[in-house]
């Protein structure tokens, strides 16, 4: 049986990659994907702990996260599409209307 720590290390690596990508990348789609990556890293820790403590609530929480992530993906992609239509770019550095 694989120790729980392995799952957690993997989850931490995925999460860190997600953060790094989120900070470094300029393309909105890539940033979006990196958010998904972080969410899934969290899901992995949930499942790992649920398995470790033999509690089902962690597994249920993962389903919630998946549902919310799916909804978020739908809304997010719609926003990205409309941004692209109005500004002809997906570079976040150029989407700076709020910058003073």
């Amino acid at each position, binding site marked *: 049986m694989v120790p729980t720590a392995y799952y957690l290390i993997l989850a931490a690596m995925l999460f860190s990659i997600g953060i790094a990508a989120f900070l470094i990348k300029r393309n909105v789609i890539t940033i979006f994907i990196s958010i998904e990556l972080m969410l899934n890293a969290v899901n992995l820790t949930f499942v790992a702990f649920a398995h470790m403590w033999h509690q089902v609530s962690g597994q249920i929480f993962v389903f919630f996260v998946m549902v919310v992530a799916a909804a978020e993906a739908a809304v997010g992609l719609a926003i990205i599409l409309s941004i692209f239509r109005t500004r002809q770019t997906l570079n*976040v550095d150029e989407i*700076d209307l*709020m910058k*003073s």
Partner: protein
Amino acid sequence: MNPMPASYLWFIPLLPFAGFLINGTLGRRLPRAVVGTVALFFTALPAALVAWLWMTMCAAGAPSSIESVIRPSGYEWIAITGFHADFAFSVDALTLIMLGVVTGVGFLIHIYSVGYMGHEEGYWRFFAYLNLFMFFMSVLVLAANFLLLFVGWEGVGLCSYLLIGFYFKKTSAANAGKKAFIVNRIGDFGFLLAMFLLIAHFGSLGFTQVFSAIAQHPEWQDAQWITAIALLLVLGAAGKSAQIPLYIWLPDAMEGPTPVSALIHAATMVTAGVYMVARCHVLFNSTPAALSVVACIGAATALFAASIGMVQHDIKRVLAYSTISQLGYMFLACGVGAYAAGIFHLLTHSFFKALLFLAAGSVIHALSGEQDMRRMGGLRTRTPITFWTMSAGVFAIAGIPPFAGFFSKDEILYRTFTSTNPLHIVLWLIGLATAGMTSFYMFRLWFKTFFGEQRIEEHALLDQHGATVHARSTTTLTMVAEHDEDQGALPHGVHESPWIMLLPLCILALLSVAGGWIGIPAALGGNNGIERFLGPVFANGATGEAVALTTGHGLELALAAISVLVALGGFYIAYVFYYEKPGTAAALAERNRRAYNLVKNKYWVDEFYNASLITPLLMFTRGVLELIFERGVVDGSGKAAGATTRGFAWLARKQISGNIRSYAGWLAIGAAAVIAVMVFGNSLWGHL
């Protein structure tokens, strides 16, 4: 006549205060006639109340029973452990005389002001200040404790400042106001210290408590702390009553309107110091050293100011130095223990000096603002009523019998001569010399102003114009206002003042003639009413009666004769110098140029104060306080605080870049920090 209820006493100060509130808040929008009526009404009523009070008190029986402290419940002011003060008024013979002067002469001067100030801007402001002054002055003389007296004391100082600087657009007037205020501050500082010492030693500031405590402890005689209190009070009195070394503000105070000079700087406020010394006679009697200081200050001031007054050319300045000199007389009287004589002179002086100032104002008015006596002359026929009334004042102050000033001045000189003070002969000689000088400079003013040929050039047409305008103006307020409107700022020729100004002059002239008759000494067949009236107040200080009995009347008559001769001598010299041979004075001055210049420049006292006190003080302020403290410490700490905030703001501003990814980075760092604290924090805090 029904006796006046004691609670009515409150109306004496409060009515003028109401007048001040009305004129001070609404006056700007009210027509002049209304402003004048309000001011007159709210000063006439207290005058009537005081008259009623006089009748009540005198009907109550012998003057010895005139003493009551009105202490209404619910008017407690300060009540802490070990100290207590409240809004208490007390009335005795001394207060009655002062109240009579303040409200009576004050009311007359208000009437005069309605005419005199008719042309001026800020009419409402003038009357608001004048009513405020009446309020504070009434509080000052009615107060039953030092603290309330000090309230009035400071209040009249404030009004004096406001009214000296009434023409505040003129730099010299604004500066004179400041000078008066600052010089008085030195005196008030002494007064404050004296009050602190009184609290420390008596635990009370009430006149009754303090004075009865001193009376019960004869062993306190000459105690150092009593002398200290007395000397500090003298410093306060010297500031307010313009005595050496703090007299310098009064001549400059003549920048104010003339009625103000008459009311505040001749008749009432400047006598507050004399009143205070007389009020504290129990305290002063127990310390002969301080009393001697009072006498010496008084005599020195009298002589010094009179000598300066002899060479001044500004008519108001002559009167100002004369006031200082006469106040010196009053101090001299108090200093030799003749408080009643001092108060008597205060009373007569308030009549004739107010008269002289108002008459001088009338002269200035007649000449459309000319104050230099070198440009006056021959006004006797042009302004006859002013001439006659002013003559009464001049004869009164010069000490010619039977005018008022003769009796009071003679009483002071006599009391000085017979006093137990070791210097009494010297003091008497100084007083006598001052009497001669007084007579000389007053008759000099009289001859220069009213006799000789007219020295002001005037346009015949303008003269006629002025005459017709004034022929139409009568004593009523509305007419004055109308006259003011069609007159505008046009210069007009030499003319007599309107009746509203002449009426107070006539009343004061009558008082200057007859006012002294209440104090005719026994030696001249009188009964010395004022001394008897004030007797109960100064009971434990009056040694004069005993002296009079032992020496008989011969000495008193001889001294009176000498002082009359001296006064006539002054008259004769002035007559020769300024009427018979007008060039004599100038020739004499030319021969003694150095002495003349010394006196002419007021002994360089102002310059001396400037060099010895003001310049070093200013240098210290500008060099040390401004450069090091103000710029370094105060501004520096402010700037440092500003710079620190700026620095932090600069750091904080770096975060708000508007770059989404940098926000996300901060977010990640923050989250990492939170996790780190949660994971490692426990073990870390556990060790602490």
